[in-house]
């Protein structure tokens, strides 16, 4: 057996995984019948449908010939890690982590950290450039979100703002 389309093969497996998980989850709720559908009825239907679709996609990926092999190609691990990492760091700085006793550091600190981490994902990284960008973004965001739109976002660290 040769995988003709790598993209289809793995996306099929992914759908089968999701399908089985939802089907199994749905059976833990009351299913009911068509005229009195329980909370599990619709998800069970869809879960089975998704599993079947996933299997069909996997079958197609080994049966239908492709010329290129439909390779997935390299993963942008660096971009993935920095972009999502920047987002997580921002969340932690804005909201704090009560479970480990980390206080909220506010929007401004969050913007600097996010911009610096996210910039690492770019093709060329310059610390000074990133710092300038962060300052511009921080000033603009403060003006737009805190002053003009009055969003309920703490701007400064909790120990300063009180």
């Amino acid at each position, binding site marked *: 057996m040769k995988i003709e389309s790598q*993209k*289809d093969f793995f*996306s099929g497996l992914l*759908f089968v995984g*999701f399908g089985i998980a*939802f089907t199994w*989850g749905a059976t833990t*709720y*009351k299913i009911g019948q*068509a*005229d009195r*559908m*329980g*909370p*599990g*009825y*619709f*998800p069970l239907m*869809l*879960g089975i*449908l*998704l599993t079947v*679709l996933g299997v069909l*996609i996997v079958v197609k990926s080994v049966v239908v010939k492709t010329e290129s092999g439909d390779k*997935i*190609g390299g*993963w*942008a691990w660096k*971009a*993935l890690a920095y*972009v*999502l990492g*920047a*987002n*997580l760091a*921002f*969340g*932690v700085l*804005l*909201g*704090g*982590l009560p479970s480990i006793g980390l206080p909220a550091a506010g*929007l401004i600190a969050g*913007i600097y950290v996010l911009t610096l981490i*996210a*910039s690492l*994902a*770019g*093709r*060329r990284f310059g610390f000074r*450039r990133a710092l300038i*960008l*962060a300052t511009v*973004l921080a000033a603009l*965001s403060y003006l737009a979100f805190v002053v003009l*739109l*009055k*969003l*309920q*976002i703490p701007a400064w660290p909790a120990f300063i703002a009180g």
Partner: protein
Amino acid sequence: MDLFSNLALGFGVALTPGNLLYAFIGCFFGTLIGVLPGIGPVATIAMLLPATFALPPVSALIMLAGIYYGAQYGGSTTSILVNLPGEASSVVTCIDGYQMARQGRAGPALATAALGSFFAGSVGVLMLAAFARPLTVLASKFGPAEYFSLMVLGLIGAVVLASGSLLKAIAMVVLGLLLGIVGTDVNSGVPRFSFGIPELIDGIGFVVIAMGIFGYGEIISNLGQSEGEREVFTSRVHHLFPTRQDLKAITPAVLRGTAMGSVLGVLPGGGALLGAFAAYAFEKKVPLKPAEIPFGQGNIRGVASPESANNAGAQTSFIPLLTLGIPPNAVMALMVGAMIIHNIQPGPQVMARNPELFWGLIASMWIGNLMLVILNLPLIGIWIKLLKVPYDFLFPAIVLFCAIGVFATNNNTFDVWMVAIFGFIGYVFIKLGCEPAPLLLGFILGPMMEENLRRALLLSLGDWSTFVTRPLSAGLLAAAILLLCIVLLPAVKTKREAAFTEE
């Protein structure tokens, strides 16, 4: 006449200074993200949604709608000057638009795109105003069975339009439906698939999904691609106005594009994208006049027709949303979310219950189109400068606005974790060639579909044949099957694949 008094009411609402300002902000951001490749209206609307919480609902919707049709204007600028589609719906504009720019005719190409869009937008708005009432009358005949069948038709429509494998697109819809029903079941009060996490009892936020998949997923995928050679024709934009000969060529093309775009925009699954593809394909079939430049080498009709079509489609895709409450595409699905946040239940009752909102939104679209012509023609120089900003500066800003948008929606850190998960999933989908738009549509329709299915089967005492014995419902399902069959026909299948590989 009724229509005129309604439009007068609408203009009364849309012409207040506040609403004019919000229409302008929407159009401005729309053009901005339209010009910038790599960020689309879905992520932008999700990003700016929290900023509209404090606004009255009319102003919020006016602004969000402006982003969508504004993006249709901005998208053409990048297509013509950089040969990169600023928006998916401007993909075909690249073909002839960029060739025109290379021949030093960027000015007329830009002007044609903007003026064609304006004409098409005006027609689209009129269609919206004229068809709204008859469709709401039809909608009043709809029972739960019809609504369910209509949603099936809508989802099939979205699948047919997705590029790539049909099976994968259907699987994405189903996965979207499943994600949509996470949270408390309205009938039994049972929290489903919430793993005991309190934040999940209300379901997954649609901002989280839209932002994760369309925002972060796209950014990561863009960063993963190597930067191609880009030649930006920025210094050569002078004498904007088309010659008399150009005008003669574009007038019929604009009319054809507008007609196709308006009709295809209303279809379930339709919107700006389908219209643009179809209009370009059709325009190529119209025989060339003697001495006319062939298509693909800078024919001005190849800009006029798809650009008119995408804007006409952007306006008319509001018709199913405002009259039936069914979103025909991912952007409209977000508008449903926005309406619900502002306590408006989308559907046929909107026109009766909130006439000032309904007609105000329609009137504002025409005003917005007028603003966009001004934003995009005399001020074209600003947008060209923007194209020179390197992506290294742009993407951290986009990441930041996504993060602020997510946090501000519910003011909790939980959403930030969730968006990271969906950002990862979104990137995986892009790598695996699964288009995410059908997933978002399924996500919004999931709860509505379950509710209507449940009611329909309750009324029919569990008899599934109710969907095919009620004539309206049977008709809608037949249309869905017909649509699927057409796509599966061998001849159409190869054409469809060709259309998407032309990108």
